[in-house]
């Protein structure tokens, strides 16, 4: 279980560091792959671009997706990976600063599995990261096709 990969899609280096720190503080020791924009995330998932040749059979256990990204934004990433057979059922957690109802609604309608608002208070952020890891990496039973593909 602990070898399962987390794909963190985040462009803000501070947030990357803080997220990694929060995950670590929350005792999530899984490998975290960081994609700094939407294109990179899709390249990783579909084995294209800089990730050409990557074994796409190896899918992450969960994707932590920021919405506001350069180039291709988070919603578009979600839409594309939901329309691909291989990543159709991949658990995606939107992790964002936005509390806008519109974003929440759009995220869910595009097939997000969860929507988490990044709190300013770092203590709360650590708590959120811990619960997130516990839930998606330990409690949650991954979808069958993800397992098959693995």
């Amino acid at each position, binding site marked *: 279980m602990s070898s399962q990969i987390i794909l963190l899609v985040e462009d803000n280096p501070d947030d990357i560091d803080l997220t990694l*720190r929060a995950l670590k503080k929350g005792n999530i020791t899984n490998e975290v792959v960081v994609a700094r924009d939407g294109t990179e995330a899709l390249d990783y998932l579909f084995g294209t671009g800089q990730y050409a040749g990557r074994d796409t059979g190896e899918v992450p256990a969960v994707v932590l997706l920021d919405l*506001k990204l350069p180039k291709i934004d988070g919603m578009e990433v979600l839409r594309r990976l939901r329309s691909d057979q291989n990543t159709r059922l991949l658990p995606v957690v939107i992790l964002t600063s936005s*509390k806008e109802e519109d974003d929440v609604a759009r995220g869910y309608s595009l097939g997000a599995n969860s929507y988490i608002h990044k709190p300013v208070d770092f203590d709360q*952020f650590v708590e959120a990261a811990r619960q997130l890891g516990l839930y998606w990496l330990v409690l949650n039973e991954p979808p069958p096709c993800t397992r098959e593909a693995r």
Partner: protein
Amino acid sequence: MVIVFIQVVAIILQLAAAILALRLVPVTGRRLAWVLISSALALIVVRRGIALIRLISTDLSAMPNFAGRMLESMVLLVISILFVAGITLIRTVFLSVKQAEQEARTARDELESRVHERTAELEQTNQALLAEVDERKQVEKALKESEARWRGFLQSAPDGIVIVDRDARIAVVNAKAEELFGYSQQELIGKTVETLVPERYRDVHVKHRSGYTDAPRSRPMGVGLELYGRRKDGSEFPVEISLSPLQTEQGLLVTAIIRDITERKRIQEALQQSEQKYKTLVENLPQRIFLKDRNSVYISCNDNYARDLNIPPDQIAGKTDYDFFPKELADKYRGDDKRIMAEGKTEDIEEAYIQDGREYIVHTVKTPIKDESGSITGVLGIFWDITEQKRSEEQIKRLNEDLRHRAAELEAANKELEAFSYSVSHDLRAPLRSVDGFSQALLEDYADKLDEQGKDYLGRVRSAAKRMAQLIDDLLRLSRVTRAEMHREEVDLSAMARDAAESLKQSQPEREVEFDIAPDLTAYADPQLLRIVLDNLLGNAWKFTGKHKRAYIMFSSVQQEGKQVYFVRDDGAGFDMAYIDKLFVPFQRLHSMEEFPGSGIGLAIVQRIIRRHGGSVWAEGAVEHGATFYFTLS
């Protein structure tokens, strides 16, 4: 000898008598009688002959008694003579009787033939008479029929008919006349016709009718006059009478046909009234009204239009638009008339109109006028000045355009604001997270290198970052309240307030706060937004009574100027009315953070929600004497 002679003569005489007697047969027709008499005489003759022969054969001289014999022969002779004479006499008598009889018969025959003749004659006459009688009967029948017809006509006539003689005495009255005047026929026959005339007209009627009988002819009576009939009960009714003379053997009769025109007069009057009304209406309408014929020549117009044209209304007839308007305009008017009459449809036209050199815009309704057969005879026009209206319309249009323009600008601004809010929400928070996160990292990872003051500073940095995050959230809430779509429905405010109160009690169960919430307060509003209002107002009341041991919070409503005014009242800290204008401004606070925490956004949010509902919100309060927040909803 002498005796023999005598005797012979006697025999001859007797024979003659017998023959004569026989001859009487055809005279008397009494064959048997005369044959018997004749036979008797013949027998006597035979006996006398035998006696004679014997005489002769005897000697006469020998005869005893000559003298006796002589006498006997003489007597015989006399008897024979008497026979002959008698028979002859009888014959004469008979003959005379017969002749008389004959004469009588002839006379009778003659009479009879004359009777026959006469009878034939009579028969002829009779037949002629019969024919005549027949004819008469026919005539009489025809007469009767005609009379029946006439009577029928008379009785069934829809008008009253009264026939009077030369002296104006009523001779005939029909049923309708009886009905009209309320008299029975018996009551009228023989009376003068003035019985049926109202008393005040009787004298003049007598004069008129004698004038009529002097020169009788068929004509309506009293042309141009209003005629009235008088009923038996004295009431009067308007009539129309036509008179016609009838020369008869009994002299001049005058037939008067009388029609009750009450109904017609009523209709006429109603018509006149309606016409008068219509005329008054037309004359008093502020609109200009005109009527033109098929060739767009004016027939009439109302006073208002005539005044515009500076002519008396009765002088419009015969004029055309070319007499009043510039050619171009008149051409246009005429063109419209033509089209409307050709198409037969009413049109609404907005057009130019010039009066006293000033140009106006008028709204004209032109309608084709049709006669009874449906063919178009002209055009009716009604128009009124809409210059002002047009000007206002244009102004409104301009204003509307401005408004549209501004709305578009506003929308653009709103979009910008939304984008701004989004970026505030997302981008402004991210650095704060870094500030807080790395401060925490410093505290954790470098705790041994920081003294207490350094740690305190980092703690302040963190709390400032958090407060700023709270401010950002509040700002976003405020803008969300403004942008959120409204869905109004019937809202139970009492239930909503009870719910909010319950939450507050649960948040601080140790507090002694009495909530007094009026039942059945409802409003037509957006439930989510109203919930925010009540949460804020009741939350404030809860918060600002927090320093008191006991508190009383009330939610109710009053009627003010026909409007329902809701209010939330508390007996808490209150506020100084001098700062009332700062109460609803975002982030403005009347208390210190230490005294009562908060960002000062709540009342600003309340005000926005109330305004979005078309209502208003205001407050009353005094320091340490509580506060009351009122609001209305439209």
